[in-house]
């Protein structure tokens, strides 16, 4: 299908249902979008796609943005479901129910979460200690997960857990889809530096999961986890989709609105700093486009870590520069630190329409962006991956590689 044909198909979708129509909810619209194969353009027909090259999805989004005021930003609706759940399901999911699950991810009816990190296993997630033991047709899981974003509103959790402690750590893991409404699943909020609790501790006490919900084979969980993580990193390094979009556009607006008095030299220094950030953001956007143009299909590889490192570190600098532009106004944090429990992560991530929202967003993001270089793999881990998996440099001597997981020291 050519670009023109894709654009035509989007327009015919919009004739059936239009996102600006007050009668059509996000779920309604996105459901029909899915049925038209315009949800995940590279997926097979019938599963929300048309079997096109991955870059066609940006054509779809572009056409949608050109023809409607309302645009449902994928990653804001169900970031983990769309960014990671869908590709993992596509690659490893069993046929029955797959279409319906993908559709509900896309519409946002089912929110997904990622149950990987544990108190003793973060960067070294393959060293995790939660355990699943086979019992008839079920597995019984015990353990604790931590930093689980959106677990409190999720229907499905992507769970990695240990099914065999007697083999080296990577070989004893299995991957499950956990129904978060199962008995024995308990979420507690974790209070973050922003004042929010978007992530959780999740306790698993004798939770039963049917064997049929295992993705991949028993003991092959690490492979599925890697697919998940690579998709996460490429989603987190996606860059702004439009030229001059993203946080840099907010920075430029704040600069134009700034009433802070600065000497000529201070102003020139600030302008150069901002210009560097602007150029870097543009290079990142182009790098994402380039990666998409060369990625034929399927799951992203370790190169996705280029975008993840570059974007997380760039955005931290952009938000920090926003605060510098605000001057003394940056002393005030209007949102306060009273515990807030957002049901989604859209509350303060977007909004660039008025100067009040912009100021609040900058202050919030100064704090929130500190997590960008931790979540989805820290910058140090990303640099290890780039060094070892992309450049082929030798790994560190490992003390945990060839011994049974149960014999590895932990702390």
């Amino acid at each position, binding site marked *: 299908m050519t670009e023109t044909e894709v654009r035509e198909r989007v327009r015919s979708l919009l004739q059936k249902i239009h996102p600006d129509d007050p009668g059509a909810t996000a779920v309604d619209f996105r459901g029909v979008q899915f049925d038209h194969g315009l949800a995940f353009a590279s997926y097979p027909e019938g599963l929300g796609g048309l079997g096109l090259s991955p870059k066609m999805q940006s054509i779809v989004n572009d056409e949608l943005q050109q023809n409607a005021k309302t645009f449902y930003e994928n990653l804001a609706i169900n970031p983990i479901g769309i960014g990671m759940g869908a590709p993992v399901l596509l690659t490893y999911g069993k046929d029955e129910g797959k279409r319906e699950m993908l559709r509900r991810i896309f519409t946002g009816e089912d929110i997904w979460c990622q149950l990987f990190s544990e108190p003793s296993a973060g960067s070294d997630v393959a060293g995790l200690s939660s355990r699943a033991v086979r019992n008839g047709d079920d597995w019984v899981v015990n353990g604790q997960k931590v930093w689980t974003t959106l677990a409190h509103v999720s229907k499905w959790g992507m769970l990695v857990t240990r099914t065999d402690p007697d083999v080296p750590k990577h070989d004893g893991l299995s991957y499950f889809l956990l129904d978060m409404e199962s008995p024995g699943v308990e979420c507690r909020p974790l209070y973050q530096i922003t004042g929010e609790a978007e992530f959780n501790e999740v306790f698993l006490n004798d939770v039963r999961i049917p064997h049929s919900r295992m993705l991949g084979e028993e003991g092959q969980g690490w492979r599925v986890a890697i697919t998940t993580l690579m998709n996460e990193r490429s989603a987190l390094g996606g860059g702004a989709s439009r030229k001059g979009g993203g946080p840099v556009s907010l920075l*430029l607006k704040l*600069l134009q609105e700034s009433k802070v008095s600065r000497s000529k030299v201070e102003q020139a220094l600030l*302008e150069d700093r901002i*210009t560097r950030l602007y150029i870097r953001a543009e290079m990142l956007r182009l790098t994402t486009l380039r990666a998409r143009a060369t990625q034929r299909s399927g799951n992203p590889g370790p190169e996705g870590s*280029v975008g993840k490192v570059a974007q997380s570190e760039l955005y931290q600098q952009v938000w920090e520069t926003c605060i510098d532009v605000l001057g003394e106004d940056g002393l005030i944090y209007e949102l306060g630190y009273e515990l807030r429990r957002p049901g989604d992560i859209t509350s303060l991530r977007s909004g660039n329409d008025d100067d009040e929202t912009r100021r609040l967003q900058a202050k919030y993001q100064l704090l929130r962006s500190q997590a960008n270089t931790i979540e989805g793999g820290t910058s140090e881990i990303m640099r290890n991956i*780039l*060094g070892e998996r992309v*450049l082929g*440099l030798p790994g560190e001597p490992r003390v945990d590689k060839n011994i049974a997981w149960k014999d590895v020291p932990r702390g």
Partner: protein
Amino acid sequence: MNFEFSEEHEDLRRTVRQFLENESNETAVREMMAEENGFSREVWARLSEELGLAGLIIEEKHGGAGFGMVELAIVMEEMGRVLLCAPFLSSAVLATSAIELGADASIQADLLPQIASGEKTATLAFSEAGDPWNLGKIEMTAAANGDAFKLSGQKTFVLDGRSANIILVAAKVGSELTLLQVDEDAAGLTRESLPPLDPTRKLATLRFDHTPAKRIASVDVRGALEQSIQRTITALAAEQLGGAQRCLDMAVDYAKSRLQFGRPIGSYQAIKHQCADLLVEVELARSAAYAAAFSADDKGADIAAAMAKSFCSETYAKAAKRNIQIHGGMGFTWEHPAHLYLKRAKASEIIFGSPSLHREKVARSVGISAA
């Protein structure tokens, strides 16, 4: 934005790479850089006849290959990788563009085939001391004497100014900026090589003392020269990308093979993470250079070129410096090629304007600084 190279593009890259690996290996580079004119006429002839590179962007009707900026970027990237010593940037890019965009049709028909065949090399002398990259600051004025003109004064930082056969000079006639051609052996012309920071690209000062010159453009060439410089900058950014990638490759290869404390130095994170950082920078620079080339005919091409020049310059310098450090003492020796890349990187950062000069252009165009 389209970023896809076609099959033909990949073929071109392979052919050029293969040629350069034979003809511009390290030994050849060292030989050429020691020569005052800095290149081999014989290699230039082969590169023109066998690969058509001297006329790469010259139209077919003038004996060239008729390629555009994307092909030019590919070729420059490959040349940058091996530090080719040749008047490619001066003759095949800058002077060619100036003739193609600024000179009268009869002149084009005369000069371009000579350049394309490789028989002659050309350069454009426009820089004057003080504000060398600013066409608005050109003061040299051609004195008219009937149809003939005479030039007096000095042009500096002229690329391959000593060796070029066709010398183009940008000078004023009245309030207009025009192009003149000066013969190699014209009376009152002295060409003096400058001792270059980067021995792989030669620079000269050209002095004119009532030197006879022929006017070759009947209209004002300010716009044409700006356009020519923009092309040159776009090509240079691709060359910088090629050099930066080569520095990263050298660093990574060495980090894999050099052992200290019983293991490869690349297994230490202090080294590994520096390589990873360079990879990120080089990938961003690649986007910068390719975007400038792919969008060279679009609106906003000047800003894409400015971004590419500032970003690729800084990336190349970073990569060249890091590469020296990762090689330890070896990297500081004359014997090792690492220093040649540092010198090329710094020199190419300076010619046609520093990164901050280009950032200023971006800052004004997107409204960060007052227009």
